[in-house]
């Protein structure tokens, strides 16, 4: 069964490689899978710029994303809960959120550099903007979707407003919050790579690495960087899913 899932991607890779060997795909436009592998090995062993190794690029990127994402979750989840809980707060904050939301996070880059410089704070801010809105909106809609009957039952059982928020709305919205966190982390991860394109202080970062590879026209290493970004995103998402299953056992077989 598990092998069955691998057949389609493997067949695609084999076809791609074969077409490259036959010369149907010119290497300078799309390098073959083996060339990308070689580029990846070079990124691991030698690094790009030479001396700047892939593992450090990855760690720095993860560090920036962790900052931005945790900040977005720390602000987004409570704000989303409040917006779901109170119609008045929703009325005041909602239009503001809806106005800022459509602005692509990358449009903030020039301002972010002015406000936060070119260090981790700037990248974290951009990632924050990418991750924040899905988290807020999913939290709010999760709260709104909690059955009013549950809140009423809780009240008749002696719950105060704080109990309702903490013991009913929060757990009730948790599945939706997790969806928001997963989307937010995904967008944050995508945003990061682009944010690093404008330059980074440390000289490390996956997006930055891809930019360097682009500058010297190494398509194989550009693609190798993309593979690393994709795989890392996949691993992070799986981790979040796992965490979600652990935190929400009631979601299991249902």
């Amino acid at each position, binding site marked *: 069964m598990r092998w069955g899932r691998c057949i389609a991607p493997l067949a695609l890779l084999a076809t791609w490689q074969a077409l490259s060997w036959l010369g149907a795909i010119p290497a300078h*436009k799309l390098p073959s899978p083996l060339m990308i592998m070689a580029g990846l090995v070079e990124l691991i062993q030698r690094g790009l*710029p030479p001396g700047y190794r892939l593992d450090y690029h990855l760690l720095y990127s993860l560090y920036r994303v962790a900052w931005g994402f945790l900040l977005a979750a720390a602000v987004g989840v409570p704000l989303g809960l409040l917006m779901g809980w109170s119609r008045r707060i929703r009325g005041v904050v909602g239009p503001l959120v809806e106005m800022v939301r459509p602005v692509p996070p990358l449009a903030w880059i*020039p301002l972010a550099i002015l406000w936060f410089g*070119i260090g981790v704070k700037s990248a974290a801010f951009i990632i924050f903007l990418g991750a924040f809105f899905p988290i807020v909106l999913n939290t709010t809609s999760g709260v709104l979707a909690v059955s009013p009957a549950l809140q009423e039952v809780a009240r008749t059982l002696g719950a105060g407003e704080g109990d309702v928020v903490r013991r009913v709305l929060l757990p009730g919205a948790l599945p939706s919050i997790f969806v928001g966190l997963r989307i937010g982390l995904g967008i944050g991860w995508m945003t990061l790579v682009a944010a690093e394109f404008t*330059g980074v*202080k440390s000289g490390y970062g996956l997006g*930055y690495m891809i930019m360097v590879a682009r500058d*010297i026209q190494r398509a194989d290493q550009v693609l190798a960087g993309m593979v690393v970004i994709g795989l890392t995103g996949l691993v992070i998402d799986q981790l979040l899913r796992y965490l979600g299953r652990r935190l929400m056992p009631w979601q299991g077989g249902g």
Partner: protein
Amino acid sequence: MSKSLSMALALVMLIASATVVAAGQTRPIRIGYLQADIHQLACWVALDKGFYQDEGLKVEVAGVFKAGPEEMSAFIAGELDMGYVGEAPATTAVANGAAKVVVLAQVNTEGSAVVVAKHSPIKRVQDLAGRLSAVPGHSTVQDFLLKKALAQAAVPAGKAKVVVIKPPEMIPALRSGQIASFIAWEPYPARAQSSGVGRVLVRSGEIWPDHPCCVLVADQRFLKTRRAEALKMVRAHVRATDFIRRHPEQALAIGVKYTGMDAATVRLAMANVKYTYHISVDGEKQYVRFLAKLGYIKVKDADAFVKRFLHGELLAEVLQK
């Protein structure tokens, strides 16, 4: 009935368009240049003064790019026939086997500068030790120039910290004190000066006199099939370059028109650029060795590579007459 009619009509149109293409065999020459790069003034002069038409050439600006690597990507994609571009991105693109272009003529030499904040305590290149400087990219001429300047000033490698920032972000970064200096091509140094943010610490010509900068390149296939037109392009380029030297005020006006910057800034920028069509062979050799040593390109024999990459025979032909 109407179906067969429309099919016949389509067929007629197809034949008609095919004959048009065959008759007008010479499709326009697709060129590219960099946005607001004052080095490439010759290109704008030739466009503006109609030097290409004078040669009987049909030229189409197929791309205005923000950075050299992007323009090289367009060459790789087969979207350009000739272009004004930095020698650095052209070299890496060719050495890494991605692009197939050759240099037909120099466009300029020098034309970069190290800039520090206006009231910075930094007086000499030595003072950059222990401070953070920005370069536009790791494999750029500017990166090379800064390394050279630091070496000349006996600052040990690794003593001055370097960060990559894209030029549009350099002036804000300098203004807010996040970097102590930057090195960039004109007009960024001129803009830093005229906006009151920075002053020039050292001009690139002082670091490395006559260092290579921008070049006129041609796609190899284009050169093979349409050599006569390439020759005319080189002639128009030589004429435009001479025009800049003879009529700097008129050239300045064209620079203002194409960059949208004010005359004072353009004048400042132009003063730092040497407009020349003579190909800097030694400069290119030095640069190739630098890139190979750092591992950005794999070139064993720099001399042989430069010989293939610099294609001076058209320029020589133009200059003979």
